């Protein structure tokens, strides 16, 4: 392993999509042509001033950026330590960070001239964000969603349908997010001539982990400038939840070369690591190959992918983006867990203390930040990525409370 101080994090991935031993393109030859085409298009556009300007314009006028950096004073008082700042991705159009990526990939889709976009979704946030940009550009849209998730997330299913998307329930495998991703890949390889696949997280084959990261890095770039403006220095620590890891890498990436900024990625501890019922591959998984990349996975002794558990559907995924796997191994980012109960407590606390209803995913980050802040001094600053709003989760929370909504 290389010395983390000497690593230039902006130089990754390499040309083949590797982050150290992780990442790459582990797909059937049938998909390579489509991935080559996407990589070439992205490489030709990513530094193009016109493309950058179009992306920035959409972020400002359609998404509503920049999102505020908000000092959560009552939450800070509750923790009794470092100041807790919330990066308010929950205030974006469609209610989460996911739209940063779909706006960017929609521009790629438009440039490609393809008339149809597809996506996979778990909780439905990425599906909604994809259906939203498809509606805006007049593109046909199909969203693959595990049949189990279709049942659990009916409000988002209806939102997608209102936006004109076709929601296709996936009945194979465990009928959840990982199977939806398999099915979207199968659709893509079959319909590649007229279809653009908008992946929702920093996983999948190269170049997806790179381009999804780049589109979400606006979070960290803004947070960096806002930190200097609000408290005159860089934050002491960053905290974000990690499922696939797109909101976390979006916040972390622009700070990776700032070696004094500590970073914590919070995985879903579910019913606790010891129970085995969780979604924390970086804490309790092993490196393997799934969905086109080498990364940490939840698997059994035979190398079969196993089912995960989290109260938050958006973190319920057996893999994680390959850049996170690499950042873990070289020690640049600490990956920790918050369990279901801690996340629910944080959900309630943020709602009551600040009048902000966080997504259950983001509640994992808030839960860890409360613990972290308590051990730090009041002059220090923590930036927490509040990656999404919790309106979509009220039915889940109500069910846990035994209330019918």
């Amino acid at each position, binding site marked *: 392993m290389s010395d983390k101080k000497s690593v230039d994090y902006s130089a990754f991935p390499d040309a083949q999509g590797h982050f150290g031993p992780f990442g790459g393109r582990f797909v059937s030859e049938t998909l*390579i042509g489509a991935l080559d085409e996407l990589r070439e298009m992205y490489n030709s556009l990513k530094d193009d001033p016109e493309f950058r300007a179009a992306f920035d314009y959409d972020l400002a006028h359609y998404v509503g950026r920049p999102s505020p950096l908000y000092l959560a004073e009552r939450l800070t008082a509750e923790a009794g330590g470092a100041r807790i700042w919330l990066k308010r991705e929950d205030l974006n159009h469609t209610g989460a960070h996911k739209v940063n990526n779909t706006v960017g990939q929609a521009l790629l889709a438009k440039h490609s001239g393809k008339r149809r976009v597809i996506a996979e979704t778990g909780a439905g946030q990425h599906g909604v964000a994809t259906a939203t940009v498809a509606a805006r550009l007049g593109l046909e849209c199909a969203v693959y969603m595990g049949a189990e998730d279709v049942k659990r997330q009916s409000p988002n299913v209806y939102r997608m349908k209102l936006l004109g998307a076709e929601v296709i329930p996936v009945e194979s495998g465990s009928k959840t997010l990982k199977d939806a991703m398999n099915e979207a890949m199968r659709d893509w*390889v079959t319909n590649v001539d007229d279809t653009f696949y908008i992946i929702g997280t920093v996983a999948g084959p190269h170049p997806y982990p790179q381009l999804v990261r780049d589109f979400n890095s606006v979070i960290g770039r803004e947070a960096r400038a806002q930190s200097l403006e609000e408290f005159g220095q860089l934050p002491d620590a960053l905290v974000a939840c990690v499922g696939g890891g797109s909101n976390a890498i979006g916040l972390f990436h622009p700070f990776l070369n700032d070696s004094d900024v500590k970073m914590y990625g919070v995985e879903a501890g579910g019913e606790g690591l010891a129970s085995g019922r969780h979604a924390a591959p970086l804490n309790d998984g092993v490196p393997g190959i799934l969905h086109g990349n080498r990364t940490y996975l939840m698997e059994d002794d035979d*190398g079969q992918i196993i089912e995960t558990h989290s109260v938050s559907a958006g973190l319920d995924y057996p893999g994680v983006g390959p850049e996170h796997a690499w950042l873990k191994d070289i020690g640049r980012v600490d990956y920790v867990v918050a369990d279901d109960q801690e996340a629910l407590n944080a959900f309630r606390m943020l709602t009551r203390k600040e009048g902000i209803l966080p997504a259950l995913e983001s509640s994992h980050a808030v839960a860890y930040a409360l613990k972290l802040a308590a051990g730090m001094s009041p002059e220090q600053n923590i930036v927490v990525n509040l990656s999404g709003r919790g309106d979509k989760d009220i039915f889940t929370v109500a069910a846990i409370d035994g209330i019918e909504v």
Partner: protein
Amino acid sequence: MTQDNRIDRRFARLREEGRKALVTYLVAGDGGPENTVPLMHQLVASGADLIELGVPFSDPMAEGPVIQRGHERALEYKTSLRKCLEMVREFRREDSDTPVILMGYANPIEKMGAEPFADAALDAGVDGALTVDLPAEEAGPLSEMLSARNLRNIFLLTPTTSEERIRAITGLASGFIYYVSLKGVTGAGNLDPEAVRENLEHIRGFTDLPLCVGFGIRDGASARAVSEAGDGAVVGSVLVSAIGEAADGAAARDAVAQLVGGIRRALDA
């Protein structure tokens, strides 16, 4: 390559006889693990030249619905890579002639480790491997392990594979090339024999390896159509579908015998 192996010998013999190869696929453990080896023998008795034994995986991303369900059924019996190797060993007790390749996904091999896998495959009597999600640029370490044991590395080529990649892949490949006849997943139905013929002729400019055509071949007519320009046809989904519908092992063997026998006759006609 210093020595030949069963795959090379089989294609050499077919060439001498002026016949086309019939490559047959089934998922190990599908229909019950005790039925797999008898099914393999049945395939051979009905005219198969080479057996692709599918190694079940929880996330078979390149497969269409029929073979996906085959993987799911096999996993209900917890058919692991190790069990697949045991099945090949058992098959070899009665058949030392028919080539067997393992077709599957990278993660079960990654879990076992490339070197232990290559050792175990050689020891069990496997002749080669096709790992669907290990394209040429990621396949290096496993390919070397297999080659060092005189096992063959089967790779896919597709209608969208660039000339540069055809060159790289044929450089790594051995045994035969599996040409994917269409854009899509296994079992799709939009085969164009004329396009297949043109692509195969193009690929022959890069390699002397036998070219077998798969994806979308469901009967004697389609097998014959694609194999006219190629060296053989790969049949998978129709067999997996029949095994899935069969009431028991004997019914599965009967169904497979009918299908494979019919395709064999069409190829030899």
